[in-house]
């Protein structure tokens, strides 16, 4: 009851020991600047950096010279969108409705440079509407950005048709793989995206470091101006410790994917099964099985106050999230959930949404604790004015 159980692994994850070990030398004795190659302190930092690049590349089946280090997922997304947009004057930025704000707002920021944003709808499970994407691409476009896995619903994109649609029209394709990397296998050669974003803190690495994969031969503009770091694309002395930590974290996470997928999917599906069977007027948001991230549970309860839902989970000892608490005026409403419900009979119905995301350090006992706490939480949530009126209106 008193100890907090951390079920918010889509928000961030605990640093793994492997990453910390890889970082420590660079936070202590190996403090050289990677650009100072003449003496060994600098040369060592440089070689750590290039080793990390190789490790990250290997985990994604990319080439080392296709990996550019950044300050995280947000920066990678911003670079991809703005860097691509500026190469096609007047071309639209085409994004899925369920993208992270780091993509949506980066797209919106291109308007002042003459790039309109086109938002492609998704279906009820969160899959991007490929017909709508094709229709959008009949006009001139600069870049398409569709995420590999959604941070709120855990829906894993069927990437093939999106890749075809973009490349048939010769449009650059970016994917935000921040939630996917280290959790599901990624092979950039199979995906054939032109750019792909990752962020270390989502796969048990440190915060404030990420990477942008840019396929060889892809011409996008630079993002940060200054020195010649990251081949002039992203100037600034590199975060060597963070980058070394990210590389180790990614290597470790990628190696654990088979076992972790099996373990987390089992826990996930137990929780999902419980919700489906035992909570009336509750709906699982997102896709199922292999098209859902292993640790993601996201559900909405009709006629439940979103903030109250979080308050009760927190007080019962669980760190969960509402999906996107801070994004819009009304508590509990999120652009992702709204996009999924656009064609649902429950569109516009008041609902509370909770996202429970399991990770490497969660145990079966913790999942059991959640299942034992849920009935009391649900009972309290349902004891409210609107649900009562709804039940009365149903003639029960």
């Amino acid at each position, binding site marked *: 009851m008193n100890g907090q159980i951390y079920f918010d692994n889509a928000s961030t994850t605990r640093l793994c020991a492997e990453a910390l070990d890889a970082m420590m030398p660079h936070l202590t004795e190996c403090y050289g600047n990677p650009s100072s190659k003449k003496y060994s302190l600098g040369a060592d930092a440089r070689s750590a950096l290039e080793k990390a690049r190789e490790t990250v590349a290997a985990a994604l089946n990319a080439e080392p010279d296709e990996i550019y280090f950044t300050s995280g997922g947000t920066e990678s997304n911003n670079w991809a969108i703005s860097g691509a947009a500026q190469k096609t004057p007047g071309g639209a930025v085409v994004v899925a409705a369920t993208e992270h704000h780091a993509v949506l707002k980066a797209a919106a920021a291109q308007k002042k440079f003459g790039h309109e944003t086109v938002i492609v709808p998704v279906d009820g499970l969160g899959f991007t509407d490929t017909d709508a994407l094709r229709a959008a691409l009949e006009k001139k476009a600069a870049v398409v950005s569709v995420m590999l896995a959604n941070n709120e619903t855990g829906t894993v994109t069927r990437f093939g048709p999106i890749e075809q649609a973009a490349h048939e029209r010769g449009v650059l394709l970016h994917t935000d793989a921040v939630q996917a990397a280290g959790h599901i296998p990624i092979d950039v050669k199979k995906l054939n995206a032109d750019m792909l974003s990752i962020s270390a803190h989502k796969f048990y690495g440190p915060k404030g470091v990420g990477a942008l994969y840019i396929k060889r031969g892809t011409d996008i503009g630079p993002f940060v101006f200054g020195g010649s770091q990251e081949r002039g694309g992203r100037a600034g002395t590199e975060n060597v410790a963070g980058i070394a930590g990210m590389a180790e974290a990614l290597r470790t996470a990628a190696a654990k994917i088979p076992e972790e997928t099996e373990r987390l999917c089992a826990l996930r599906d137990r929780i999902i099964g419980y919700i489906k069977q035992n909570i009336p007027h509750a709906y699982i948001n997102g896709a199922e099985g292999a098209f859902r991230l292993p640790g993601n549970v996201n559900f909405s309860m009709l006629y439940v*106050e979103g903030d109250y839902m979080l308050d009760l989970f927190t*007080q019962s000892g669980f760190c969960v999230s509402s999906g996107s608490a801070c994004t819009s005026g009304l508590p509990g409403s999120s652009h992702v959930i709204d996009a999924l419900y656009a064609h649902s009979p429950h569109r516009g119905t008041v609902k509370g949404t909770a996202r429970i995301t399991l990770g490497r350090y969660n145990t079966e006992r913790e999942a059991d604790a959640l299942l034992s706490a849920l009935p009391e939480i649900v009972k309290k949530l349902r004891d409210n004015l*609107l649900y009562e009126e709804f039940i009365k209106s149903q003639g029960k």
Partner: protein
Amino acid sequence: MSGYTEKVVKNFTNPQNMGEITNPSGVGTVGSKQCGDIMRMFLTVEGDVITDAKFKTFGCGAAVASSSMATQMVIGKTVFEAMELTNMQVVEALEGLPPEKIHCSCLAEEALRAALWDYSQKSGVTIPGLSAPDDPADM
């Protein structure tokens, strides 16, 4: 831990006076412009003393805690004294609310005033300073 004081947590995990009063002396429902949440308060008045108060809400933990506290504070008071209760007194009794949750305590104050208004309309007792509440349907 959650930005809530122990008192707040106690009052929303184990709220007092949550429920309804059948045949109340006064009942009022209000809505929040900020978050769209709703609060309904019921009063039983004998003589001019509030002998029972209950609430039902569609609101967050802070709203539940505020009305749990507000109902406890007005029981035993006269309707004139109850009229003086402010949301900040409720917040004080709860030993504080996070700044973004102050508006939730306003729901308790406004619902109480709406119930008092209903009572004064039904009973013909004039409560100085009281005016008709906003219609929640307008918000």
